[in-house]
C-alpha cells in the first residue's frame, strides 16, 4: 500500500500531471482501492470544501494580489534608487542596498517571487553596469529573494498555520529575529564578496530626494507590521490592508494602474491563487485517505518507538525536506509533509513554532536548489542570457549560510521563540 502511494506519486508527477491533480487523483485511487470503492467518493466534496473553509487562508490570494500590484507599480525602482544613494560609497555598497530592498519588500509581500522579481528587475542591470560580477549579483538576488518567506508576512507560514492550527500571528513574530539575522549575515557576506567595488558618495540632497520618492515603499511595511502589532488588524486582515494601500499608491502616486493593467493583475492573481489552493485541496484529500488507512500513524509510531534520539529523527526529517526541496516547490512540500511531520514533532516534544521556522528556512533552500527552484527560474526569466548554472554557482555560499543558521537555530531555539515569551503588549 505504501508502495502504491509513493510509486503512484512519483509516476504521475513524472509524466507531467500537475501536482494538484496528481495528489487528488492519487487520493481518489486510494479511496477506490483501499477504502470501500466509489462509496468513499462522497468524501471528496466534503474534504475539498473543508480544505478552503478557513478564514486565515483568505490572506493568501490577497498577498498574491498585493505583490502583483507592487510588481506593476514603480515602488521597487524608487526603493532601490534610495538604497543605492545611501549605501553605494561603502565597499560592496550596492550589494547592501539590494539586500536592503529585498528586506523591505519581504516585509510587505508574503512571497519570494515578488521580492526576487521586483528587486531583481532594477538591481541586476544596475549592479552589472557598475562592475559587479554577474554571478555574484545573481546569487545575491536569488538568496535575497528567499527572505520574502522568512520575514513576515509569509505565505508558507499562513499555510503552516492553516494546516496545523498554530497561530499565524505567532509564526509571523517567530520569523522576525531569524529574518533579521539572516539578512545581516547575507549583507556581511555579500559586502565582503564584492568589497573591491565602491562608488563615489551621493550628496545629501540627492539622498533626501530619493528618500522622499521612496517614502511610500518604506511606509507600507511599517503600516502592515505596526497594524498587526498594535492589534488594529489581525495578520489575516493585514493582507487586505496591504492590498488597499498598494492599490492607492499605484493609482495615486505612481499612476500606473488602469483597467488594462488591473485586468492583467487580477488574471495572474487568479492563476497563482487557484494553483496554490488546488494543491492544498489535493494534499488534504491525500492526507484524508492516508490517515484513514493509518499510514502516518504507522510512521509516527515507528519513529517514536525506536530507541533513537529525537535529534536523529529531526536530522532525518531535515534531510528528507532538503531532498523534496530539490524537486517540489514550497507549497506542495508543506501541505504534503505537514500532516505527517507535525504529529511526529509534537510526539518528540519539539516546539511547533520553532519547527515552523526551521521548515521555512528549508523552504528557502528549496527555492534556490536545482533542478526545481523557483527563485532560480525567476532570475533566469529576467534576462535570457542568465543561465541556471551561473545562478546556482552564485547562490551556493548563501545556501551554506542558511544551513549554518539552521544548525545554530537548532541549538538555540530561543532565537525564534524569544519574542513570543515577552509580553509585548
Amino acid at each position, binding site marked *: 500500500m505504501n508502495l502504491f502511494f509513493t510509486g503512484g506519486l512519483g509516476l504521475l508527477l513524472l509524466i507531467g500531471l500537475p501536482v494538484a491533480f496528481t495528489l487528488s487523483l492519487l487520493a481518489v485511487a486510494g479511496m477506490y482501492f483501499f477504502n470501500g470503492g466509489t*462509496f468513499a467518493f462522497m468524501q471528496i466534496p466534503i474534504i475539498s470544501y473543508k480544505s478552503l473553509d478557513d478564514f486565515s487562508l483568505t490572506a493568501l490570494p490577497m498577498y498574491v494580489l498585493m505583490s502583483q500590484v507592487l510588481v506593476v507599480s514603480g515602488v521597487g525602482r524608487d526603493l532601490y534608487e534610495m538604497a543605492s544613494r545611501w549605501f553605494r560609497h561603502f565597499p560592496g555598497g550596492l550589494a547592501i542596498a539590494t539586500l536592503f530592498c529585498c528586506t523591505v519588500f519581504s516585509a510587505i509581500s508574503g512571497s519570494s517571487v515578488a521580492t526576487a522579481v521586483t528587486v531583481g528587475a532594477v538591481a541586476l542591470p544596475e549592479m552589472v553596469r557598475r562592475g559587479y560580477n554577474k554571478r555574484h549579483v545573481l546569487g545575491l538576488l536569488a538568496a535575497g529573494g528567499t527572505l520574502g518567506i522568512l520575514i513576515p508576512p509569509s505565505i508558507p507560514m499562513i499555510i503552516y498555520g492553516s494546516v496545523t*492550527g498554530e497561530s499565524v500571528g505567532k509564526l509571523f513574530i517567530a520569523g522576525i529575529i531569524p529574518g533579521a539575522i539572516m539578512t545581516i549575515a547575507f549583507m556581511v557576506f555579500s559586502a565582503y564578496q564584492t568589497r573591491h567595488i565602491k562608488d563615489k558618495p551621493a550628496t545629501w540632497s540627492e539622498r533626501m530626494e530619493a528618500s522622499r520618492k521612496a517614502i511610500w515603499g518604506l511606509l507600507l511595511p511599517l503600516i502592515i507590521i505596526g497594524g498587526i502589532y498594535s492589534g488594529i488588524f489581525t495578520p489575516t486582515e493585514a493582507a487586505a490592508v496591504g492590498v488597499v494601500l498598494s492599490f492607492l499608491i499605484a493609482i495615486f502616486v505612481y499612476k500606473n494602474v488602469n483597467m488594462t493593467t488591473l485586468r492583467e493583475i487580477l488574471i495572474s492573481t487568479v492563476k497563482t491563487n487557484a494553483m496554490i489552493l488546488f494543491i492544498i485541496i489535493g494534499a488534504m484529500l491525500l492526507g484524508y485517505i492516508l490517515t484513514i488507512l493509518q499510514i502516518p500513524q504507522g510512521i509516527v509510531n515507528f519513529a517514536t518507538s525506536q530507541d533513537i534520539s529525537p535529534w536523529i529523527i529531526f536530522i532525518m526529517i531535515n534531510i528528507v525536506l532538503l531532498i523534496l526541496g530539490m524537486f517540489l516547490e514550497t507549497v506542495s512540500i508543506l501541505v504534503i509533509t505537514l500532516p505527517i511531520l507535525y*504529529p511526529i514533532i509534537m510526539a518528540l516534544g519539539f516546539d511547533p513554532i520553532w519547527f515552523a521556522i526551521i521548515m521555512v528556512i528549508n523552504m528557502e533552500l528549496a527555492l534556490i536548489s536545482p533542478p526545481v527552484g523557483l527563485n532560480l527560474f525567476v532570475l533566469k526569466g529576467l534576462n535570457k542570457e542568465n543561465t541556471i548554472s551561473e545562478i546556482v554557482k552564485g547562490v551556493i555560499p548563501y545556501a551554506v549560510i542558511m544551513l549554518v543558521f539552521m544548525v545554530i537555530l537548532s541549538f538555540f531555539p530561543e532565537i525564534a521563540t524569544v519574542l513570543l515569551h515577552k509580553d509585548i503588549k
Partner: protein
Amino acid sequence: NNEKTDDKAVADSGDGYEATTIRLAYNLPQDHHISIGIEDFAKKVTEKSDGKVKVQVFPAGQLLSDKDMNQSILTGGVEMGVNSSTLWASTVPAMGIFDVPYVFNDYAAVGEAVNGEFGDKLRGAMEEKGAKVLMFADYGYVQFANNKRQLKSPADFKGLKIRSIGDLPSELIQAYGASPVFMGGGEVYMALQRDTVDGATSGTTAMLQRKYDEVTKYLTINNYAYLEFLLAVNKDYWDGLPAKTQDLLTEVAAETEAWIREQAEKEDSESAKALEEKGMDVYVVPEDELDVWKDAAAPVRDVFVKNAGDLGQELLDMVDKK
C-alpha cells in the same frame, strides 16, 4: 490487510459478536475529559467484545475537523464521530437548545433531561437526518472572559467586541449590547493580547488550556449555556449492526456518558479556580440575579424557536417546566 483479518474473525466469532471495525473521529485535544472518556469507550467496547468489535479512534482532528465531521458521519465517511451540539444545530436546528441561554441550571438536570423524553425528541430529530445519537457528552458550562471590565450585569456588555462562534451565542452577545466578532481559532489569543477584541466566550477548561489568563483580566461565571458534544453513529451503519453489538455499544456509551458528566462538573470548578489562582478577576453571578440575565437574553429564545419550529418550542417548554 484489514479485510483479511475481518473475514477470518467472522469465521470464528466465538462469543456471538460479529467482527466489525468502527472508525471513530473526534476533534478535541487528547487530554480533554470528553476525549479521555471517548478513548475509554473505544477500549472497553473492544475488550468486552473480545476484540471482535474494534473501535479505531482518530483523535484530535487527525482525520476530520469539526467542520466536516457531521457530513462525514451522515455519508458514512466515518462510522462514528464526536461533534458539538452547536455545529449539529446547522443540520438539526433543535440541537441549538443547548445554546439557548440559561436552560439548564445544574449538571444533574442535564443528565435527567437527555436521558428522558427531552433526549428522545433530540434523538428522533437526529435520526430523521441520518445520525443515531449514542451519547450526550457534557463539555460543561461556557462563560465570558474580557479585558475591559467585570461584567456584573448584562448592561456591562455594552460596546464590547467579543469573539464568538455559532449563531445563538452571537445572538446573546448582541442581545446584551455587545458585538460578536468572527475570527479563526488560532488568532484569538493574539487578538485578546493586542485588544483587537475585548473578550471571548468559552468553557473555563478551554480558557485554561489556551492560557486566556495571560491575555484577559476578567472572568464572568454566568453559566449561560451548557455545551454538549454528541457521539453520533451513521444511521444506516447502526441499523446494519446485530442487536448484540448495538446493546454493547449502548451500554458502554451510557457508562461513559455518566463518567464524562461527573468529570465536566469537576473540571469546570477546578479550571475556574485555577484561572483565579493565575490572577484572573473572577465574578460569579449570584443565583438571585440570574433572572435579570435571563430576561435580557429573551430575544435569543425567540430566534431559537424561529429556527427550530414546533420541536424547539416543545423542548423549551419541557425545560421550563423543570
